[in-house]
């Protein structure tokens, strides 16, 4: 992972971000951030084309919402129709949404995301990756309001955390070199071993093997294990 020049690092909390390795680490970072600022939940939403209908559940890349909440929302409402969703295509300003002050936020009847999802307050922080793709870091809770300073701080922290999350987890890693562990797993795949067999051989969990395999697919820019092995041999990564 590219390390930022020290000049760009600000404030202490980035120490945790530098150390974050996997989705659980970023869950911990966003979850504690939400709690620290008086929210209960967070979500990282991927924004695509405004007019492409998609479900809230499928846009949520990482979140700590109660199991099934987004799916229940999708059964009842269309996320694309909410004024909340539409606002992301009108402005990129971080916005506090409160159930108690709908008119100020331009929420119209029938498109009130907060009422639909069942929280009193939301903070939406539009962010983007270095590749230009857009996302929203969302915080939800039942608090009454957030102070100005806290609002500024959480926006900065969420931007930094998202940046690390993107580079570590979401970024397309095509063309990047394989780590020794990834090369080892690739070699065992080429010998015809299954994920559970490889897990036993290299002393990790099956989940870890699958996660490394997914990363190898991304890095080699291939779609399945057969193409992976073929390309690895062609490019002499393995013999």
């Amino acid at each position, binding site marked *: 992972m590219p390390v930022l020049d020290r000049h760009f690092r600000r404030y202490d909390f980035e*120490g945790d971000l530098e150390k974050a390795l996997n*989705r659980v680490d970023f869950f911990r970072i966003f979850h504690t951030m939400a709690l620290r600022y008086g929210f209960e939940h967070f979500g990282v939403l991927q924004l695509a084309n405004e007019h492409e209908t998609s479900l809230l559940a499928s846009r949520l890349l990482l979140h700590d919402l*109660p199991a099934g909440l987004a799916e229940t929302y999708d059964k009842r409402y269309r996320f694309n129709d909410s004024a909340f969703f539409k606002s992301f295509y009108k402005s990129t300003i971080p916005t506090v949404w409160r159930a108690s002050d709908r008119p100020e936020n331009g929420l119209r009847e029938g498109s009130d995301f907060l009422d639909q999802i069942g929280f009193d307050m939301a903070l939406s922080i539009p962010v983007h990756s270095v590749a230009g793709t857009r996302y929203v870091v969302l915080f939800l809770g039942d608090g009454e309001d957030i102070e100005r300073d806290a609002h500024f701080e959480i926006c900065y922290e969420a931007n930094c955390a998202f940046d690390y999350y993107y580079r570590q987890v979401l970024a397309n890693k095509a063309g990047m070199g394989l780590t020794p562990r990834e090369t080892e797993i690739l070699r065992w795949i080429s010998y015809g071993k299954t994920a559970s067999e490889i897990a036993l051989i290299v002393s990790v*969990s099956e*989940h*870890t093997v699958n996660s490394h395999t997914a990363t190898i697919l991304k890095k080699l820019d291939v779609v399945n294990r057969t193409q992976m092995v073929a390309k690895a041999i062609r490019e002499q990564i393995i013999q």
Partner: protein
Amino acid sequence: MTAQVHILLVDDDPAENVILSALMRKVASYAISLHYVETVDGALDFIRAAGVPLDMILMDNRLQPQADFRETVPELRRAGYIGPVGVISSSISDAYFQKIDDYGVDFRIDKAELDPTAIEFILQEYVKRDAGAGI
């Protein structure tokens, strides 16, 4: 009906079992059976007995007589356990925790961060049984 999952807690402090059991009961979307042993040997016996299909192992980082996860988790792997292993510690920002993957650990979590929401996320992430699927 909620999905049934079996988690093994390995911790030399029985109080942690009491605390974690209470936390697990607050997780609404999974019916969690928390099994408890105090030592790595106890965990190895549990794995070898194979009476219960374990979905996850949560380990205290420091367990006597071993030093830390770098010694304990490879023992679980050598015994043939290929399910997820999470390490619980109050010092996960120590440098050696950057090497969890090399020692067969799936994730790390601070004791203070273990709440029902975190447990639910971890189960979604590693056990992948849909909550409410009735498995």
